[in-house]
């Protein structure tokens, strides 16, 4: 079995074991051929286009040193990097109603500071792309680069060169330039430099070159690139209590915004764990003992990114091979055998102290060709550091709190960091020189005008509430009745014997808060069982029949209970279920708020409607789509679709599918949309006049696929629905992770922009360049950040038949952010997206198969 297959097999095999709640020993390692992987005998072995080890290229210069622009630039030229693809995707030309104005009008104008900086170019600036050939042909890329760079003819030019393709900011006199040079050995080499393209500053290729230039500049400021961001390990924030270092840094990018080229920078932190994987394993062994050590260890480590001490690379742990020891040999590329111990001693002067440690296995996928078998690399746990926070660590409340304290930056703190970065760039001689030779001028921080849209009223059963703060209206509606819910008459509580004592108090509390919100909670049948997963499941199987409306489980602890119960009750035997940790019910002082929260969730799960907002559009269906990778099998992706079922937008139809693909592009939207329309028809005896779909979870470079592949699926299901007047469709791509930030400046300090702030100019995508038109887009701030800095959500309207004015689209979107029933306040994205997210998360984490369709019209996943 190949390494990858085995990892996959083991990943899948693990899930049933974990679900049954057993601690089984991992299957003994199957001996296997180890591909000759001379770990890094020559740096070239990995730079040859292996992904999976992301290069950290402060030291591995290939992407920057003396203008050399990235080892796979050749491919990139043909296939522009993923995130730049989106730049070329255009939709605005088709949107007739926004040709005149793509901005809204309602609300109060507000002046906003941003984290965007002007980048000025001379008016007629162009980038010149050349192709370079050598006679005689030279194989060594380094030599090719060295010869070109040392040629006097090009010495004054700003250039980026990867060995074949050369970019210059100034045009050479001739279209074809012949250059002659000598190697050290006295051989004459002829270089032919041929102009292939002239690119305006707006072309995606130019944007890519600008980004390379800034990469180079940040490296001049002693920053290290990890992933896409840049960090300064020399100024760490340290949390020794949790063995963590936080490296401050920036996520940066250069793009074309509405009218000009802008540089965006946002503060970012890299979390480094100051422990080797070996120390982590040892600690784990201390903590949990040996009985299920291997299994737990693999669960916690596989998938994490490690940093090796002896070079600047990061690797993903794909597997752990317990049968290989440091004293085993591997084959170097020259064919000789060497033990790991000797290898590290010879190569890096490192003495391995633990000769019994297993090896970590990382699979390096070839970037060039997807068909090649991944290369297997063995890493020593002793020499690998854990990066990032994942798995078990994130559930360590103390630790997460400590991290949050350190990295949470106020708007002012954030602005100060930015100011320092700009200062550093402008003071650094090399950085300045780099900008100047390319003709770039680093300008001032941009400010712009946004609008704060009017706040929304919350409609309750017999009360209209204007909340004090849209961030949280739980207090405002405490005494109000929810819109509708059926009574809960027949239901079960399954709990362990130990939890018995808390139940009475909790039940009376639940009934009390229930009745005050208009939710009648009858007495349940209480089933006491032994404290193990099997006993819980058995009790549920025995007692759940067709009449049971809801099952509540009081769980002793542990994820296993939750996963098994949810799996059974969402899929095998579809009944709404409510899990509560017995620990939660022990918090005496908070019983009222806990009971309220649970009562609200329970009423949703029974199909209840909690509140509404005014929706001026009649016959409007809104839908949300999100995707999530399965926890166990990375090849599976869960696609969730949630659509409203009534004009008031209080009832929802939810569907979800597991799809075997590595891309995040949904393949099943036609089925979903058709199902949702049928369900809508059942409820309303008509089809919706308008449909607005919010699509979340679109990765970099997938925009085109969404437009070309997903929108047609939705359109065809609408067309085939059988309605007389075809429903009109709009599709909006939602992005939570956008770089721009907006602040209000007050009394010489900066604050978060207020809730409901809309930005639809300047920081939005450009509209120049017909016919290469872009989307109409806007930012909306719909979440409150009490201590940190708020992140706006970006909405990109990629398809729009509805012809809604941008202003209406913005306000509708804002309204939808009020409708998430799991939180009595505004959230950062429209409710259907958050529902879809919640659904896919439950399926990806716990259920791992399609939930039963009988539950589709309940919010059973809250």
């Amino acid at each position: 079995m190949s390494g990858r297959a085995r990892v996959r097999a083991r990943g899948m095999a693990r899930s049933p074991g974990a679900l049954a709640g057993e601690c089984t020993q991992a299957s003994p390692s199957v001996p296997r051929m180890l591909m000759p992987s001379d770990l890094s005998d020559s740096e070239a072995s990995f730079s040859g286009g292996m992904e999976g080890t992301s290069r950290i290229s402060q030291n591995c210069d290939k992407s920057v040193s003396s203008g050399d622009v990235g080892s796979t630039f050749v491919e990139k030229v043909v296939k522009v990097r993923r995130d730049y693809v989106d730049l070329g995707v255009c939709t605005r030309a088709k949107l007739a109603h926004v040709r005149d104005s793509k901005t809204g009008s309602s609300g109060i104008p507000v002046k906003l500071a941003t984290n965007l900086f002007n980048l000025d170019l001379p008016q007629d600036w162009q980038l010149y792309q050349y192709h370079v050939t050598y006679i005689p042909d030279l194989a060594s890329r380094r030599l090719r680069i060295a010869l070109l760079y040392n040629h006097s003819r090009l010495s004054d030019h700003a250039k980026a060169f990867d060995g074949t393709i050369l970019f210059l900011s100034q045009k050479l006199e001739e279209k074809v330039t012949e250059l002659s040079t000598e190697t050290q050995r006295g051989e004459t080499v002829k270089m032919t430099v041929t102009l292939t393209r002239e690119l305006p500053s707006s072309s995606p290729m130019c944007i890519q070159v600008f980004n390379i230039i800034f990469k180079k500049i940040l490296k001049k400021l002693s920053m290290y690139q990890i992933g896409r961001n840049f960090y300064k390990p020399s100024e760490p924030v340290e949390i020794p209590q949790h063995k963590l270092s936080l490296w401050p840094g920036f996520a940066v990018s250069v793009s074309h915004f509405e009218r000009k080229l802008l540089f965006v920078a946002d503060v970012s932190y890299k979390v480094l764990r100051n422990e080797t994987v070996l120390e982590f394993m040892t600690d784990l062994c201390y903590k949990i003992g040996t009985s299920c050590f291997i299994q737990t260890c693999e669960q916690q480590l596989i998938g994490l990114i490690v940093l090796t001490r002896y070079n600047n690379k990061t690797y993903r742990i794909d597997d752990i091979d317990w049968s290989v020891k440091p004293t085993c040999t591997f084959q170097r590329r020259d064919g000789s055998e060497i033990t790991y111990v000797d290898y590290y001693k010879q190569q890096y002067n490192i003495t391995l102290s633990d000769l019994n440690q297993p090896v970590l296995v990382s699979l390096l996928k070839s970037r060039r060709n997807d068909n090649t078998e991944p290369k297997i690399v063995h890493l020593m746990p002793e020499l690998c550091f854990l990066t990032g926070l994942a798995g078990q660590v994130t559930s360590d409340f103390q630790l997460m709190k400590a991290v949050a304290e350190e990295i949470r930056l106020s708007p002012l703190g954030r602005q100060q960091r930015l100011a320092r970065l700009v200062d550093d760039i402008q003071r650094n001689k090399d950085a300045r020189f780099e900008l100047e030779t390319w003709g770039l001028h680093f300008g001032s921080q941009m400010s712009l005008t946004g609008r704060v849209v009017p706040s929304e009223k919350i409609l309750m059963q017999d009360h209209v509430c204007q909340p004090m703060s849209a961030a949280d209206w739980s207090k405002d509606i405490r005494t109000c009745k929810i819109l509708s819910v059926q009574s809960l008459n027949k239901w079960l509580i399954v709990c362990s014997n130990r939890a018995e004592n808390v139940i009475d108090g909790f039940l009376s509390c639940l009934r009390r808060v229930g009745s005050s919100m208009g939710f009648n909670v009858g007495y349940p049948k209480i089933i006491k069982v032994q404290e193990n997963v099997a006993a819980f499941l058995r009790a549920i199987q025995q007692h759940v029949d067709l009449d049971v409306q809801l099952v509540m489980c009081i769980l002793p602890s542990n994820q296993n209970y939750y996963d098994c119960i949810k799996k059974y009750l969402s899929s095998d035997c579809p009944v709404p279920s409510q899990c509560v940790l017995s620990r939660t019910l022990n918090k005496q002082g908070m019983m009222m708020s806990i009971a309220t929260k649970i009562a609200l969730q329970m009423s949703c799960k029974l199909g209840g409607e909690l509140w509404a907002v005014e929706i001026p559009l009649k016959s409007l269906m809104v839908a949300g789509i999100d995707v999530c990778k399965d926890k166990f099998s990375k090849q599976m992706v869960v696609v969730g679709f949630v659509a409203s079922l009534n004009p008031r937008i209080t009832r929802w139809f939810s569907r979800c599918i597991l799809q075997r693909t590595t891309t995040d592009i949904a393949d099943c939207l036609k089925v979903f949309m058709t199902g949702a329309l049928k369900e809508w028809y059942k409820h309303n005896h008509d089809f919706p006049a308008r449909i607005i779909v919010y699509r979340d979870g679109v990765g970099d470079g997938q925009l085109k696929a969404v437009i070309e592949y997903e929108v047609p699926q939705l359109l065809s299901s609408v067309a085939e629905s059988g309605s007389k007047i075809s429903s009109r469709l709009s599709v909006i791509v939602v992005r939570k992770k956008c770089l721009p930030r907006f602040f209000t400046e007050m009394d010489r300090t900066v604050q978060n922009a207020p809730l409901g702030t809309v930005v639809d100019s300047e920081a939005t995508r450009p509209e120049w360049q017909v016919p290469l038109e872009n989307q109409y887009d806007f930012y909306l701030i719909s979440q409150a950040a009490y201590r940190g800095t708020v992140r706006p959500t970006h909405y990109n309207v990629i398809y729009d038949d509805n012809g809604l004015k941008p202003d209406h689209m913005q306000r509708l979107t804002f309204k939808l952010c009020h409708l998430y029933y799991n939180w009595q306040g505004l959230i950062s994205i429209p409710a259907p997206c958050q529902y879809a997210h919640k659904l896919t998360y439950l399926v990806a984490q716990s259920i791992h198969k399609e939930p039963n369709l009988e539950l589709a019209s309940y919010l059973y996943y809250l």
Partner: protein
Amino acid sequence: MQCDSVVDDNFEEVCPEKVIKFKPPLYKQRYQFVRDLVGRHEPKKVADLGCGDTELLRLLKIYPCIQLLVGVDIDEEKLQSNGHHLSPFLGEFVKPRDLDLTVTLYHGSVVERDSRLLGFDLITCIELIEHLDSDHLARFPEVVFGYLSPAMIVISTPNSEFNPLFPIVTLRDADHKFEWNRMEFQTWALQVANRYNYSVEFTGVGKPPAGAEHVGFCTQIGVFWRNSGGAPGPCVSQQHDQHVYKAVYTVSYPSLQQERVLKFELVSEVLLQVERLRLWHLRTLREQKRGAGTVPKEPSVAPSLMLDLFTEAEKARIENSPKPFCEGSRFFVPLQRLLAYPRLHRLPVDEERMRSLLADSVCLSSDGSAVKVDLRNTWDWEPDDY
């Protein structure tokens, strides 16, 4: 062996049309020679004259003994574009070195005197002298041996007797001003050694093929030692600061000699050790409660993961230190005990220093002699197996 870094001086021996191929490549053998020397003699200050693309410096920076590493070259562009290769690896911020290390690249000529290169333990001139014209070659000994006068000098140069084995019988590199046979090199070297009171040993790398042993090594090497009796060159203090070289790149590595780094390392290690002892203690209590009355069984799967591998001396040191103890719900680990564990023992701190460094990050007992933690945490994992 495939090798991408074949430019400049390293180009010759691996050029495909040449008949003889060395394995490992000859340039790697030269670097290995220097590395072995560094490993054996543990110099603190090392300079590489004619460092070119800084390949050798990159290999040397991993040696814990080296605290100052300097490269000099006349090609400023090369230094500039290769400087960042010498910056610390990310991992070296996570796990810092024991001793400081500063790496500096100077742009300058080896026949100029710069006082910043005085007092070195080792200066290497790998494939350098054959690039010097006769005038510079004449001034070279006076500067390197007479003025800089390091404890040890390594000079390597091509052995022209080997050249007939290559198809092209001219010089190995266009920039070479000469290539010496063994006699020529040794005569020059002995003269220089005598004049400046050094002794010299000759060796080389790149063994000739079978049947051609008489030509000697492809690269000949002279290792020079300053004689102990001789004056160590002009006294450093008498020198005026003479800064003719231009510093192109300089970087300092994080190390345990820096208080901030030491403190972080110490606190992390202390907390790690205390946590292990605490968990061990809890396990022991559990086992006792279960009635076994014995210490937990050695784990079967990953024995070494369970216990640090201690040597006899380390074990004895730990045994002889005060033991961790419990008072009520508190668990105490004496600082002396902590210092006995190898990972803390290696840190350059005594109990007093440790106390002051820990003071504001760790809770200590009232007399300050032990670290105090709660015996039980709310998030402790209790196995379900009872």
